[in-house]
């Protein structure tokens, strides 16, 4: 931008009186704008007050966004110009795409993208949106980009593009099984495609998902994600004795793994018999002493709760 002519020197802008920003007498968190940027903003303010939605106004919004992609006024005004000028949202999607990779965590960019997709209505290309989020998640190794996942979920539901999503998630987990966003996405897909009419899951689905979680638990017992996933389907805790057995086996081998002991405490507490509660108390002891020292105060509290339950039997 530095070697371009200042707007003030351009004939086509001669009719516009720039409107400066008034920060008041004190400079509280005032930003020392670069002169080019300040000039763009002065003209932008003027154009907005004229309510002018022309090609040059559109050009100006791009210039402002270039200097500050988080200026939500510029994005909002740009959206208005695009509408009034009858611009094709598909072209705008390309504009957003170019910006998105350098601004992947910018709320305004994602909101604008969604707006353009909504404007296309039935003409929108859901598969292209999915592909876009795939590329963002792939870029810069940021497979946990919260905005990208939110957009992806919105696209999947809107366009019903469930086919292939579980595969995609497995690819991500193959790269990084600790990608909790991918685990959340799996739950999202299963929840939206495999519920019964009453909202519950078939036992077959439950068992399949539990096995899926266990596959990853076996590979890396200290990865919390599959343990949470397991718990997400293990309802009630007392209805899965074979899982409990497997966990008890694991607890003999992985004596420093907090997650296996933590789950066992909850299972034993749910079972509620004198024997189970005592097992729960002992397991809390193991967590306090070695498996989850970080949370020893919490496990001491849990142990106390279990002791109270035993006393009340």
């Amino acid at each position: 931008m530095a070697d371009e002519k200042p707007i003030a020197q351009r004939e086509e802008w001669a009719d516009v009186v720039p409107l400066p920003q008034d920060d008041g007498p004190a400079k509280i968190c005032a930003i020392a704008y670069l002169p080019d940027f300040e000039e763009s903003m002065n003209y932008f303010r003027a154009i907005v007050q004229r309510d002018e939605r022309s090609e040059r106004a559109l050009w100006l919004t791009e210039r402002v966004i270039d200097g500050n992609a988080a200026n939500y006024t510029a994005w909002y005004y740009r959206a208005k110009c695009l509408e009034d000028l009858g611009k094709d949202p598909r072209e705008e999607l390309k504009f957003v795409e170019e910006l998105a990779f350098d601004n992947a965590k910018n709320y305004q960019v994602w909101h604008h993208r969604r707006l353009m997709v909504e404007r296309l209505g039935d003409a929108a290309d859901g598969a292209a949106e999915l592909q876009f989020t795939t590329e963002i998640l792939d870029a810069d190794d940021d497979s946990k980009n919260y905005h990208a996942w939110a957009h992806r979920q919105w696209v999947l539901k809107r366009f019903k593009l469930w086919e292939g999503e579980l595969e995609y998630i497995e690819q991500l987990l193959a790269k990084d099984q600790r990608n909790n966003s991918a685990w959340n996405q799996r739950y999202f897909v299963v929840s939206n495609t495999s519920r019964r009419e009453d909202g519950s899951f078939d036992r077959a689905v439950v068992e399949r998902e539990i096995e899926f979680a266990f596959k990853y638990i076996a590979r890396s017992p200290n990865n919390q994600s599959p343990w949470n996933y397991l718990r997400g389907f293990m309802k009630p805790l007392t209805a899965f004795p074979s899982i409990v057995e497997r966990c008890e086996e694991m607890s003999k081998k992985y004596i420093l793994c907090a997650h296996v002991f933590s789950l066992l405490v909850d299972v034993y507490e749910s079972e509620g018999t004198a024997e189970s509660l005592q097992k729960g108390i002992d397991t809390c002891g193991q967590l306090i002493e070695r498996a989850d020292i970080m949370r020893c105060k919490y496990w001491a509290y849990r142990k106390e709760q279990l002791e109270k339950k035993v006393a009340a039997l």
Partner: protein
Amino acid sequence: MSKLERDKLMRFIDRGMGILPARFVTQESNRLTIVYFGLSSLDVTNSLDHIADQRSAIIDFVYSLQVLPGPDNNYERCGFRGSPLIGNPWNPNCEPIEQLKHDYAHVANTYVALCILKMLGDDLSRVNRPAVMGGLRAIQAQDGSFRAMFCGSESDLRFVFCATAICSLLNDWSGFNKDLGFAYILKCRSWDNGFGQGPEQEAHGGSTYCALAALSLLGRIDELEGKDSLVRWLLERQISGFQGRVEKVADTCYSWWVGASLAMLGAWDLVNHDMCASFTYSCQHMIGGFSKVPGVSPDPLHTYFSLCALGMCGHDGFQPLHYSLGLTHRAAAAPTVFSS
């Protein structure tokens, strides 16, 4: 280092509230939040006297950002701006002036505006409460969520929290449909017990804070089911400091989002305070202030939340915090024209 470098901290805060270099331009729209982080850092560390001579200038600056209703008394745009970037003239006394076109309040900036005023002991007498309420009414969606501005933005739990805090600070809930808001909060509960930013989204420390603070301000935190599981989810976020999501790295701001969440559920005592403080100090920068992770530049946001964390972990002389409002108790209790 496990000692607060107070002098460097003060200089860092001063720089953060003065003239900022050009690269801060990306924070223009939300400049008022930077003021909030700076002043809050002073408030928490009992150092507001540091800016005593700027007090009325800051108050005037905040009021100059109030979006006022026009002659037709249309409130939908009302509240506070984050900055004067729209070109609004200097108007600290909130005189009725000609409305600017495309001038909209932003709910997060309305929230921090009220916080700043309370911290500085202003009585809120220049706040147009019916207008602010009208602005909130206009940005609540059918599903109970809130967007940030009437002209449009994403709609999620962050702004639900801001709206509840605004209503609480102004002692007026007429702009907030409580039942719809409550229902939306519950819809954001994840299968793993935390809260996501929106329904079905990944559980996140920041969203969980927003949910719990909003529920707390609504007086309905006791209606939350599975509190024990939520406490466990929150406690499991501690890996030294706190992570914001399962299997991510620790970041100082989550000591606040997750820590305050635990405090609101009565479980802060179960946290490993020493490890939390230790991690926080590892993020104290040699130029002063705190960063998100060790070894990167400090910033006002992470500085403020780090100070909150240190206070919660028992640092001497820090002000006790009102967890759901995001203020010190002292600031929260400061009387206003709207106090009951």
